[in-house]
């Protein structure tokens, strides 16, 4: 039995729910040597910035238990080169592309959105809110609902109406639901979570921080429980808002966990570093798990773990089917 894996980001349909996480697939062409990018739901670009960025000094990575720290610092060619080379390369190959943008001011995010609004091949825009707000003593936008909402509202206002705007949230907040709500009120069509919580580790030989940037973003299975919790809480509070779930997804089982918590799209990041084919493997494993449990449609499993203790699964599925 094959499962209908189609899913939606706002009104944009994706052939399946497995996409790459921003900053974990570079410009896309690197992964294209391993498989046809058209086979995954979408490719998310690294966060594009106005100017080219050299990023942080090395060491930029350190391995931690079931995870890793990274401090890349948004290295990238800048929006001009992105629009000249990287985006066309993707759209010519018909790769559905979620363009991630990062800025230091509301104006910078807005300017980036303006540059993207008429560019062909933009499936959705993901706003990376985990950037320091230069106008607020470097306080990260994502940690403040109002600042996040301001960015989202401004991006939404200049972005083409038919391109969904996705707000990417950080777990380093007191209440992820309030930030999520602020972003949705600000006009976000969907939410993605989680970006890396901030961590650090120390090289006990050198007796200094392992990363030249001292702190870095923690990723990998170690943070999956935080990610599932965020997806669960936000889906419970805003059940109608599409969620891109990410954080430590290595297998179809992990993706299924995100789906059950409320994600309709699942992004794979760090797993790509270990297995270039991770997206296709996770997709296949997820479809097998769904089929084995008698699901006809991915959509029927989204948020299913929220059903009241009494309710059975079949029941829920039958309901959905009878409503065809």
């Amino acid at each position, binding site marked *: 039995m094959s499962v209908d894996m189609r899913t939606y980001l706002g009104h944009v349909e994706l052939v399946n729910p497995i996409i790459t996480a921003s900053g974990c697939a570079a410009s896309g062409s690197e992964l294209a040597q391993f498989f046809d990018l058209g086979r995954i739901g979408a490719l998310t670009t690294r966060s594009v910035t106005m*100017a080219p960025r050299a990023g942080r*000094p090395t060491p*930029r990575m350190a391995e931690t238990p079931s995870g890793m720290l990274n401090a890349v610092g948004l290295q990238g060619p800048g929006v001009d080169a992105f629009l000249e080379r990287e985006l066309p390369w993707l759209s010519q190959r018909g790769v559905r592309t979620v363009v991630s943008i*990062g800025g230091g001011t509301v104006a910078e995010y807005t300017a980036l959105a303006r540059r993207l609004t008429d560019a062909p091949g933009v499936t959705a825009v993901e706003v990376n809110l985990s950037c*320091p707000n230069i106008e607020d003593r470097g306080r990260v936008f994502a940690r403040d609902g109002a600042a996040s909402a301001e960015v989202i509202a401004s991006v939404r206002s200049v972005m083409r109406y038919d391109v969904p705007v996705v707000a990417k949230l950080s777990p380093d907040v007191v209440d992820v639901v309030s930030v999520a709500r602020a972003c949705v009120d600000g006009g976000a069509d969907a939410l993605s979570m989680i970006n890396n919580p901030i961590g650090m580790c120390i090289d006990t030989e050198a007796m200094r921080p392992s990363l030249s940037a001292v702190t870095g973003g923690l990723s990998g299975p170690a943070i999956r429980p935080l990610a599932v919790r965020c997806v669960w809480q936000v889906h419970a509070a805003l059940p109608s808002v599409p969620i891109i779930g990410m954080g430590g997804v290595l297998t179809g089982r992990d993706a299924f966990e995100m789906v059950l918590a409320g994600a309709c799209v699942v992004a794979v990041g760090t797993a790509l*570093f270990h297995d270039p084919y991770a997206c296709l493997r996770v997709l296949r494993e997820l479809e097998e798990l769904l089929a084995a449990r008698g699901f006809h449609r991915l959509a029927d499993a989204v948020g299913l773990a929220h059903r009241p203790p009494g309710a059975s699964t079949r029941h829920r599925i039958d309901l959905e089917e009878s409503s065809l």
Partner: protein
Amino acid sequence: MLTTRRVDAYHALTVVAPGIAERFRPGHFVGVAVGGSQTAMLTRRAFSIHDVKPDYGGTVEFVFTVGGPGTAWLAERRARDTLDLVGPLGRPFPLPRDPVTCVMVGGEYGSATLFAVADALQGRGCRVDFVLGAVSADRVFGALRARRMGETTTLTTEDGSLGMRGKVTDVLPGVIADVRADAVYACGPMEMLRGVTAVAVEFDIPVQVAVEERMACGIGVCMTCVLPVIGDDGVTRMLRSCVEGPVFRGERVRFDDVGTIPFDALGAPGGGSRNVS
């Protein structure tokens, strides 16, 4: 996995990997998964390919020292265990068209990758001489093979336990002069590569170096393995050593600035862009 052997201070693992052996060219490396299933070690370890053989459809051998938990785990593997490899990865060593004289400079396990290069060079009629060094005799890799392959072989150890006491860079100028070298190929610690490059520049001959940076993916997607390299246009960019390297022209690598973002690098902070994360 096929065989595992000790070579002085090093471990050598031979793995049946036809797909990798087939596409192998000197300078390539592999990404090796460590720790088995349910491991807490998430990232692959990078190892230069030392040797490929046609047996069993194609085998790959790499040589390593035990540093941290990943290499410690690898050192415990036994024959017939299975290993998870990705490769071949990286840009291989470019080879000269003409039959020139090349000096192969290897430090520690860095020597391991040089023999395949020497093979290819000799296949093109090049003369090959070796300069291998390490801190001590047991850490000089491949001295015997070098003696067999090279016109001359010069060994150095910092404790004087084998060959000359000192570093490869102490003897390199003499070797280059004696053999009238046209080019240098080097692999080893970054500090050594910097010194070797300086010597080659001194003699105004091309030098190809295989660098080593911390890598999380090895396939070009994570951007953690960068170092400052000067392009043909004279502009310094932070290039990925896994896909744009690990082999670079030595004089293009800004060794003094490794671990920094040179102020004049493309996209350096203050250089027009802001540091937004």
